């Protein structure tokens, strides 16, 4: 069974400005903090204790709550779910000195981060300063022995910057693990929110699937060997039909739950600020009530129907349809699962 994953937004406050962030600008500026009581209500349920569970501390930027509070969260979570694996998603913009220690103690020496070559900036709106600070923070973690894979959001700006700009940036840091995510335009969604039945958000992409997979294929063909020689591993290039989809949130609606600092719970962390997806709040409902919210069941069904669109695809068994928060097809001739990449993986395995 795949892990059950708890995404815990300890705050939505952030020290980086991402134009297309899935959190609203208003929430990113608020100095809210998750209470221990809410955390306890969230974790004290058999949904977690009966399953192999991963707890992912997130924000905004989780580290802005400070060492003392963050440590309290981790300790309390360990008391409640001693066998759950814990990790954190940080934006690496201002890695505090205590984070490596905390990662050593609670996160199995591993955290994660996200990155893009555009539309990510410091709070003053400086993209170059962001990239510099990000690299510093990322290097700080790797140099401290903390593995911090980077999820690159393949947004319009990153793709337009070109394969070489990205490869050069990757080679300029100490990071040895890079992954790729599809890019959703939450800014555009928020201007005109659209939901299907069950509160399934219809999310617009910033780049077509064909451009995304073409970009990755080019990256692999032109710079893949160089990156590999430098010791950099890229999950998307190492997909194996025998082991299934190693990408992030495939078939996730049933096993993901995200907690906001105010007690609001939804499924996918990208839905944190999408009100139409919310299952309710722990402020006035129990976990059992939230879990039995009909919209959750409807979204699981919708996810299955989404995957049914892939019937007939030779890659379905191991691909599972790609990230479940985006449509399978976008009309570009490619799909969310990346059939082109899987074709290459199959060719590799046959060779």
């Amino acid at each position: 069974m795949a892990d059950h994953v708890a995404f815990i937004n300890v705050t939505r406050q952030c020290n980086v400005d991402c134009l297309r962030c899935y959190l609203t600008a208003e929430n990113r500026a608020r100095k809210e903090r998750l209470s221990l009581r809410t955390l306890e209500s969230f974790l004290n349920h058999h949904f977690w204790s009966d399953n192999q569970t991963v707890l992912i501390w997130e924000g905004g930027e989780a580290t802005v709550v400070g060492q003392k509070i963050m440590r309290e969260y981790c300790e309390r979570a360990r008391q409640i779910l001693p066998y759950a694996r814990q990790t954190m998603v940080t934006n690496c913009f201002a890695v505090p000195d205590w984070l490596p220690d905390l990662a050593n103690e609670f996160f199995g020496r591993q955290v994660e981060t996200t990155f893009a070559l555009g539309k990510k900036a410091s709070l003053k709106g400086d993209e170059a300063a962001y990239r510099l600070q990000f690299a510093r923070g990322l290097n700080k973690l790797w140099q401290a022995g903390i593995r911090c894979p980077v999820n690159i959001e393949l947004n319009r700006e990153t793709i337009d910057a070109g394969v070489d700009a990205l490869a050069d940036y990757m080679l300029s840091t100490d990071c040895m693990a890079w992954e790729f995510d599809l890019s959703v335009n939450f800014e555009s969604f928020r201007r005109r929110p659209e939901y299907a039945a069950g509160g399934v958000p219809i999310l617009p992409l910033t780049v077509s699937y064909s451009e995304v997979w073409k970009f990755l294929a080019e990256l692999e063909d032109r710079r893949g060997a160089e990156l590999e020689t430098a010791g950099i591993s890229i999950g998307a290039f190492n997909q194996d039909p025998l082991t299934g989809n190693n990408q992030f949130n495939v078939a996730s609606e049933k096993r993901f739950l995200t907690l906001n600092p105010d007690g609001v719970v939804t499924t996918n962390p990208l839905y944190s600020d999408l009100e139409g997806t919310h299952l309710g709040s722990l402020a006035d409902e129990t976990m059992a009530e939230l879990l039995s919210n009909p919209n959750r069941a409807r979204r699981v069904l919708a996810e299955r129907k989404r995957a049914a669109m892939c019937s007939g695809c030779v890659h379905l068994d191991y691909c599972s349809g790609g990230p479940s928060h985006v449509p399978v097809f976008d009309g570009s001739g490619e799909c969310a699962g990346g059939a082109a990449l899987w074709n290459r993986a199959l060719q590799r395995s046959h060779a």
Partner: protein
Amino acid sequence: MQFLAGLKASELNQIFEKQANEIKLNQAEKFDRNVAYTQVECDVELMRVPLDAASVGLAPSLDETGEALCENFVFSLLLITGTLNQCTIDVPADCSIDPALVLSEAEQQSLNVRVLMPDDTSCIEPVRAYADLLAKYSTLWLRQGSGTYSLSPLDGYLEYRFARALGHTPDQITRNSEMQALFTDSVSDEAMDYVKSRLDQVIEHELGGDEYFREQVDLIASAIHLKNTELRNARLQMLEQELDSRTPVPNLIRAVASLTGLAIPDAAGMVYEIKHGIHTVLDKYLPRAEGDDIKAPSPKQLDLASGIGSAFVSALGGQAAFNAVWGEIAKVTQLKSSIDVDRGVEPPSEIAVKAADSLGVEPKVAALAIAELTGMFGSILKAGKAIETLGIEKPAEVKTTAQSNIIAVG
């Protein structure tokens, strides 16, 4: 436990509404979860689970295409699993849905499947049809080997067969009251025997006969034995490591253990208590005076050590002669080279090899035990200033490890 079979999802929704209204009227009202709702038919989406439900079993149904499971059924399963731990897929005895479809859903949701007995087990035909249906499910389940869900009553019967392979024939196939109510209580012996024989056929075909169960039991027993041995060896190794890292005379303790037959922790305790006893006696008769540094040895005890040292020096004809004798002792007992002996750079001396035979320990342990004993005596001489050093490097500081309360010498 009360059993309510064959209700519809719409009826369960109504039951919940009624119970919720009762609570609204009387806040003190509480419902015990003591009702097992079985074979619930999903005529609509099950939106709320009755507050008295201990378990809910949903009967599968097909959608209008006849090729997929009905959405009401799948939705209801998804919804209940968020509320109740005890949720199953209940396959009625006359169910004609493709078992592969049902088991696939069970696997996806990790939900146990129960193939339920027909209402009437007094006639041959329904029992035969049931046994055939159960055989189909059992064959598929045994071939999958996914392990994320169970199939009843096959699971109980497999348990029974394993018990028999262990030489114990249980008087009942299951002791679970819900399983008894659903599968054994109201079933005639003849019907039960027929179903069991049909299951035996499937098991024989898919797994094998009694021999298979005996082999599996042997394998499990061997695995447990192996695990126990590994754990015991790991524990012993840990104990040895602790002995070396946490006690100043580990080999002396090993030698005492071998001599006395005591376990290592007891031998360590014995050595510790002897040492502690000597210090207690010394502290009683040669205590520190008021104002003496409590961290330093008692001046009176140091005087005693000095006296003993002086006596040896005088007896041997002066400091130079004493030094020569002590040097020889340190050499013969390998005190000075104990680190090299420990590392295997220098072999144990002839004396140590002979002592090892007598003590029943490895020569290296004997050599180091002799060195440790000599070192203890040497520290008295050193305290009395008869010698300047023991001739060995200062041992590395004992690492602070978590207190295990097993060994506490020194």
